């Protein structure tokens, strides 16, 4: 009981200082005493442990229209509602019945430090929503859905990448909030910025410099990153995705540009722009704060403990057998 009291209390305390700040076109830090920590080459020092856990939705609820920011009071109420009123069962939705109680394992977002923002959605701008799909993308999605229908449990290859423990959807790039273990570690050295993400222990090794990207025939699940500094902002350009990486429905033509800017001792504003002309009618940008946490990152060895895959497939085969027997 103490744990959750502390955590909920912490969560509420954390709300207070954020809303005193100016809205998030954050050019300068809220705390005027703060100076940017730097590595010896003069660039900002982003090193340490961070979380991108969030209760802000990616897309703006339709009824909010063009409202990009809550007032401090509205934001506090929104976050309180998300962190205190809603439970892990609410978040699970349809799976709640046949699922372990997440809160018992500390997996509820109210029990961890959350990166708070006054934004009404992570996607910035007057619309705050993913742009319309191209006609090509619409057709592609319909075709893929038709192919999948009725075959969702045929084999391991039919399951989502996450269930297969190949790559976690929140790893990206771009990095997006995960329901739990939404943590990363940044280390800078040897001309690289390295970002180790907890799920699934992926390390993005971002070289700083003007090296060209990989040749176009070499594709990677996490793409191929190249970084450079624009003043105190780290800019990372990533291309060379596979055609199965699938970021919100993207193809191998996905191009991601990320920007990291530290605005106070415990906050990095992380912004990403996705561009895929074969999927969306225009590029779109989202912004999400990273909040400093205490380490370490714990190992998330997914494939090694993936009993869920054989269990799910054997369950599906058993259900098919049972259905056959019933039909007889």
């Amino acid at each position, binding site marked *: *009981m103490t*744990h*959750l009291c502390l955590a*909920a209390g912490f969560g509420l305390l954390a709300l207070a200082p954020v809303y005193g700040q100016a809205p998030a076109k954050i050019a300068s830090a809220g705390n005027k005493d703060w100076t940017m920590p730097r590595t010896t080459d003069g660039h900002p020092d982003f090193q340490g442990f961070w979380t991108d856990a969030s209760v802000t939705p*990616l897309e703006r*609820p*339709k*009824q909010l229209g063009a409202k990009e920011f809550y007032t401090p009071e*509205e934001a506090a*109420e*929104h976050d309180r*509602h998300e*962190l*205190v*009123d809603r*439970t892990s*069962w609410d*978040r699970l*939705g*349809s*799976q*709640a*019945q*046949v*699922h*372990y109680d997440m*809160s*018992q*394992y*500390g997996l*509820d977002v109210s*029990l*961890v430090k959350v990166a708070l923002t006054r934004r009404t959605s992570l996607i910035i701008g007057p619309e705050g929503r993913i742009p319309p799909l191209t006609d090509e993308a619409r057709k592609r999605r319909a075709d893929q859905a038709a192919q999948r229908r009725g075959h969702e*449990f045929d084999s391991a290859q039919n*399951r*989502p990448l996450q*269930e297969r423990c190949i790559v*976690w*959807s*929140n790893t990206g790039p771009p990095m*997006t909030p*995960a*329901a*739990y273990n*939404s943590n990363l570690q940044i280390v800078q050295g040897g001309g690289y910025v390295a970002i180790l993400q907890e799920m699934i222990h992926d390390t993005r090794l971002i070289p700083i410099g003007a090296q060209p990207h990989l040749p176009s025939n070499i594709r990677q699940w996490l793409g191929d990153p190249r970084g450079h500094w624009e003043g105190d902002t780290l800019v990372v350009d990533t291309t060379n995705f596979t055609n199965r990486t699938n970021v919100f429905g993207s193809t191998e033509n996905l191009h991601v540009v990320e920007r990291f800017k530290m605005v106070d001792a415990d906050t990095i504003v992380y912004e990403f722009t996705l561009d895929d002309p074969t999927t969306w009618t225009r590029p779109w940008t989202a912004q999400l704060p990273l909040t400093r946490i205490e380490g370490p990152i*714990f*190992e*998330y*060895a*997914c494939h090694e*403990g993936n*009993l*869920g895959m054989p*269990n*799910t497939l*054997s*369950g*599906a*085969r*058993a259900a098919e057998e049972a259905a056959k027997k019933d039909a007889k």
Partner: protein
Amino acid sequence: MKHRLGIQFALAAAASTVFFFVTPALAHHAFAAEFDVNRPIKLRGTVTKMDWINPHSWIYIDVKGPDGHVVNWMIEGGSPNVLLRLGFTKEALPAGSEIVIDGYQAKDGSTRGVGKVLRFADGRKLFLGSSAPGAKGEPDK
């Protein structure tokens, strides 16, 4: 004013569930395919071990059936990383602990289940309580 705000947020929350892109239903494996909602189980037994592994931890318990025969069940739980971060250690659920599990059995009929609610024999929840003070607590059914 507060009342209007409350409705606004409730609506926003309802709408945002659909777009809350961290929903584990999309993220995790399909529990509905693995476990059978028509096979509820209530087990009382002693812990033999807990595997602190990912993507799911597993609690193994010895359950004595009505015939006196002891069967070892394995119960699926959450990622242990957060428990470690909250200061729990692998000694948090020692072997020999007596626990009660309300859950559902695997579809393939094996002695495997998911623990919807897990308690010690004295009624305490296993690691942490419900998610927040004033929360709804257990779901219906």
